[in-house]
């Protein structure tokens, strides 16, 4: 069974690249209040370590750990490790996370490349049970609905189980939110269901943790991120936020995260920030750049339109132009 890094070249995922840059921009907002260089970053670097490179270069974090479960390819990972300060820990996140030291403030990005499953709850639980003010958690998972060939009954190739059954088998009936029906697990609804499941889990663990802390030391979880994007054939969801204590409340408010248009902190509704990376040529992008950023109205003026490009493409570009990845094929002598 091929590993994900053998199937996808992580450097070539445009939406993911945009997401990464947006996240870094959000993290930078903390610079005024927390010394980011004293943070630790933990993630799943795979062989490309794209997030690690970005985090180290743009934020200056010097304590970086990449958790890797493909232990048989150790040498390859070690070879591709970009900086001395990036350390590898081999094993499953379930096993590695509890054994890390949680002394430093932490940014944890659980970038799973598969669908929701029970072991994710363990990692969430580990994070929140060691929560401290200033810690950030991110969870990325696939939210493509279960496909027909994945719904085969174990015993018979012709009999199918429902998507609901499959979800129940994977995470247990008591984790499925009240009122979820089969039709809620289609392409439209499955991301919302996964989002709710993750948030329910966060709420529960957080509540248990907070219930034994004195009032003035209680922690608060503020959601910042709720992304949705297409990654090749897979539909992806990223959800996450920051934990802070009452006394840091002012600091967090002054970070002014909501100034960034991709921040989604309302949890009671499912309105993710959609990252759509349009396919444009260099010339088209340079033309559009000249009229960006918009000063007043966010809409493109009629006369500035490139008539042959759809309005949607141009709108999408204007939303993310600052994070737009550039892929160049070049031989540099």
């Amino acid at each position, binding site marked *: 069974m091929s590993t994900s890094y053998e199937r996808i070249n992580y450097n070539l995922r445009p939406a993911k690249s945009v997401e990464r840059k947006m996240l870094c921009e959000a993290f930078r907002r903390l610079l005024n209040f927390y010394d980011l260089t004293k943070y630790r970053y933990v993630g799943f670097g795979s062989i490309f370590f794209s997030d690690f490179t970005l985090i180290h270069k743009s934020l200056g974090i010097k304590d970086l750990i990449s958790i890797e479960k493909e232990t048989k390819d150790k040498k390859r990972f070690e070879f591709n490790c970009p900086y001395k300060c990036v350390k590898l820990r081999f094993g499953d996140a379930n096993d590695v996370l509890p054994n890390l030291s949680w002394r430093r403030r932490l940014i944890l990005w659980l970038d799973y490349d598969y669908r929701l499953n029970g072991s994710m709850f363990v990692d969430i639980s580990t994070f929140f049970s060691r929560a401290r003010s200033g810690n950030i958690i991110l969870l990325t998972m696939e939210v493509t609905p279960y496909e027909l060939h994945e719904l085969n009954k*174990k015993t018979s190739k012709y009999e199918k189980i429902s998507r609901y059954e499959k979800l129940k088998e994977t995470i247990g009936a008591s*984790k*499925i*939110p*009240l009122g979820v029906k089969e039709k809620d697990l289609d392409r439209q609804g499955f991301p919302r269901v996964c989002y709710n499941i993750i*948030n329910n889990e966060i709420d*529960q663990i957080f509540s248990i943790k907070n*219930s034994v802390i004195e009032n003035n030391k209680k922690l608060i979880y503020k959601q910042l991120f709720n992304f949705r994007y297409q990654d090749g054939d897979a539909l992806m969801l990223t959800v996450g936020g920051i934990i802070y204590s009452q006394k840091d409340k002012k600091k967090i408010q002054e970070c002014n995260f909501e100034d960034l248009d991709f921040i989604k902190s309302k949890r009671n509704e499912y309105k993710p920030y959609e990252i759509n990376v349009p396919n444009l040529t260099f010339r088209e992008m340079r033309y559009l750049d000249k009229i960006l950023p918009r000063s007043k109205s966010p809409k493109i003026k009629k006369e500035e339109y490139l008539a042959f490009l759809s309005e949607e493409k141009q709108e999408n570009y204007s939303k993310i132009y600052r994070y737009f990845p550039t892929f160049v094929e070049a031989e540099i002598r």
Partner: protein
Amino acid sequence: MNNKKELLSMIINGKPTKELFITMLIRDISLIDAISDLVDNCVDGAIRLKGDGKFTGLKVDITVKEDCFKIEDNCGGIDRELARNYAFRFGRPSEASTVDYSVGQFGIGMKRALFKMGSKFEIKSTTDSDSFTVEIDVNKWSADDNWDFKFKNITQGNFPLDKRGTEIIVTFLNPDVKERFKQGNFLSELEQKLEVQHLLNISKGLTVKINGHSVRAKQLELLNGDKFKTAYLYRNYKIYGNTSVKIYAGIGKYKNIRTGEDMGGWYIFCNKRLIKGSEQTDITGWGARTPVRIPAYHIQFSRFRGFVFFEAKEPYFLPWNTSKNGINIDSPIFRAVRLEMIRLMLPVKNFLNEVHDESVDFANDRLDKKYLQEEIDSANLKSFSDVKTSKKFISPHQRHKAKKRNEVTITYKKTKDKVDKIKEVFDVSSAKEAGEKTFEYTYDRECKE
């Protein structure tokens, strides 16, 4: 005068305190079980209306919100005299009439559940001839020694069928209850619990909703086919109020341990209410030594399904505890039934052991097919009330002998660099293969003719 003083000092105060109920007894039950208790009261109303018949048209609507809890039903309401003299007493007076085969019997369920949740209650009831409201403020009520409550208003009249029922609203929720009600996972767990605890009532047509979402009817299913028969036993205990018991022992197909939901074990019902399930301890015979030896519960028994249905006109005789989440192991009826349960589960345990052994043999290449597993996979699942039964559990038996290989395992340790060199020499990638190759090499040169 002195005598009277002496007489008075001989008296010891034994009066119960209100604190006992407000703060202590509420600990004997979990929040979800408390809500289930309230549903039981609705079910009793349903039994009062329909007896043994279907509950179609009857419903229980539960609303769980951060600032209030509400449960309302259309199961007939509480009779005014019942309310005045019995329903609000702490404990059930012996002269109170009961509903035959009811589930509410200790006189404690409703009060305990309400005290557990909050400090302000409003109970409205409408029967065919009267309607009343009772409002209780726990803080005011606990301030003095008076144990009485007061009707807020009582009206008499002829009330239409669809208006007859009970509504209970709890506000000023206790802080930890408030916290739990906020969580999505709590609602999921509540749904799961109610689904199982009231599955028989729901399958009789009772609609139970939580925040507008209907609780599904779960099925108690057993394997059914030409080769499988579920064990079934019926007993009636005349001297214990004619309590009857039906025991089923067989296997289900589902083996879902990955999500932590191990469904194997015994499910005990009292008057159609699930008390304990899936029970996997010595209480239901796992690990027993008499009358036969049964091993302690183990994952390989996760396909085991045992259902025990106790029914009694008077719930007093049933072997349950006051929280209805446990078995009264001292009950003579239960002790007798337990022996029967153990007897019935023996052939099932033997079969599951055979299935396990087959799996191990197959994994070790001693069998080329999982015959018993195939039989299981090709059988159907049917509701317990529809399966074929017999006096004891019938199943197919393993007829294929595991190939006995005359093999011996050789194990030894050598340093890594030496093993790596050997691997290179024989062009293999594992230590196991290196060992096998070296053996063959030596054998070919030294032992072959």
